[in-house]
């Protein structure tokens, strides 16, 4: 009986020691790069009529469209968040404040990845009032008015979640706060490419998230400081 307890205790101690050792891994030099593309027919993005908001309309030389599925050359997908969803130990804490702008009656960036408890500053750069209404379900939903010239709204999110954000005054305004458990993420550019840097050796699950098409995952193992490639292909539907 006593022996059993000793064995159990030894296991607990060993696991504890292992956790201490792995809790603060050195910043690695491995990386994952790749490209996010689609097959099939993506929907046509609708043009946005801003004529009722002239102060915003005049900021855009070319017509603005919705941004649910933004495509680029070679069937690439923009605004896809690629991040480490499993395999990471002791993610580094968020560093500086994330900035989210309302400019020309659009959200810039359209998709903002950030970490829980990371400072988030929301600016209104326009000559019109906006209301910022993040439709959080896991975190708490709120809704604040921000007239032109008001100071930035200083806030943060507590839990990981994909949070759609909208402005009810300008119904076409639509964006995302992507709150991730990891500091290792990347958002694809117009060419669909991404790069996740600073990864220590290890086995990882990489997830790509697109606001309309959901998530795709794949496993990537990094040994040493190698750079691995992971490409994602989403099936696009016109609706």
């Amino acid at each position: 009986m006593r022996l059993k307890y000793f064995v159990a205790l030894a296991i607990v101690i060993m696991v504890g020691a292992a956790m201490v050792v792995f809790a603060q891994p050195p910043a690695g030099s491995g990386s994952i790069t790749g490209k996010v593309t689609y097959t099939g027919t993506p929907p046509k993005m609708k043009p946005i009529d801003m004529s009722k908001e002239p102060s915003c309309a005049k900021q855009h030389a070319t017509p603005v469209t919705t941004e649910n599925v933004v495509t680029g050359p070679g069937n690439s997908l923009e605004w896809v968040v690629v991040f480490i969803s499993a395999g990471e130990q002791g993610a580094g804490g968020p560093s500086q404040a994330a900035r989210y702008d309302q400019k020309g009656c659009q959200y810039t960036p359209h998709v903002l990845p950030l970490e829980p408890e990371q400072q988030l500053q929301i600016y209104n750069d326009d000559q019109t009032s906006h209301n910022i209404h993040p439709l959080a379900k896991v975190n708490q939903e709120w809704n604040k008015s921000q007239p032109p010239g008001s100071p930035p709204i200083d806030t943060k999110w507590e839990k990981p979640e994909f949070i759609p954000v909208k402005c009810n005054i300008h119904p076409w305004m639509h964006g995302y706060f992507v709150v991730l458990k990891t500091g290792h993420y990347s958002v694809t550019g117009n060419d669909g490419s991404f790069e996740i840097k600073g990864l220590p050796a290890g086995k990882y699950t990489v997830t790509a998230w697109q606001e309309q098409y959901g998530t795709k995952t794949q496993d990537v193992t990094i040994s040493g400081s190698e750079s691995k490639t992971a490409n994602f292909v989403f099936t696009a539907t016109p609706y």
Partner: protein
Amino acid sequence: MIPNKFAVRFALGSMALLTLGPTVVTAQATHVNSVNPNLGAPSVESEQSHIDGVTGHAYNGKKLYRRFCIGCHGPDGNGEGENAQWIDPKPRDFTEATFKCRSTPTGTLPTDEDLYNAITRGFVTTNMPQWRPLSPQQRADLVAFVKTWSPRWAKEKPGTPLTIPSETPITIDSILRGRAMFQKLECWKCHGPEGHGDGPSAATLTDDKSNPIRPYNFSTGTRFMCGETNQDLYRIFMTGLDGSPMPSFADVVKPDEAWDLVHFLRTLQPLKTQEASLWQSYVSAHGKDIKPIGPDSAAGAQ
């Protein structure tokens, strides 16, 4: 071979009984609150509410809920009762713990008193009636029970209620300043240039469940959703109506300005108020010079 198979089956069967048994028993014992997806919510046995010296108990509230509320708000508190399909706006989903009428900042839980007032007052222009026929004790019991639908009530405290300073004098200057704010804060984008609820964005509005929702039409002259006094009106736009498109203006409107806006909003209602008579005499004196509210308007500059 045969006894072996039997043994396996027996073992599997008893395991299933062990796992399922307690679940079935609890489900039968509770009826309401049987499938609570929000683990960690306050327990029906112990949750209380405190309103003006009255202590409400959730276990009493549960019986009242089953009698009076379940038809619309549903057996699971998610607003999907059997009547819900015929109702617009939809009954509140208590599992989200998002409430429109609060005295607390946007994104925080309401106070017990806020919920008590909501039950007492009901919501005009919706299917939620007044519950004044219930005793204060019964209403307090219901408040306690409503708080057992979401774990937020176990983890968080209600926000700090908004302090409303005493009302500034009702003058035509105050009304005009309020009118300028109605223009500048873009209230008219939803509520319309004359407060008829017909602004350019009105038709696009949806609540947090993507159901269409109407902005308040001041020309109906009814009570507001969250009360009828000037203080109630002040509170509505300062705290915002969470879950709806109505934002909080607490960070951008100072108390004096808020009273100015209250005074102006009163002139939009077809009521015989002091504000309305001041405004009418101003209109008959300066009618031609008043710039209408709307796009490209100089109403902001009076």
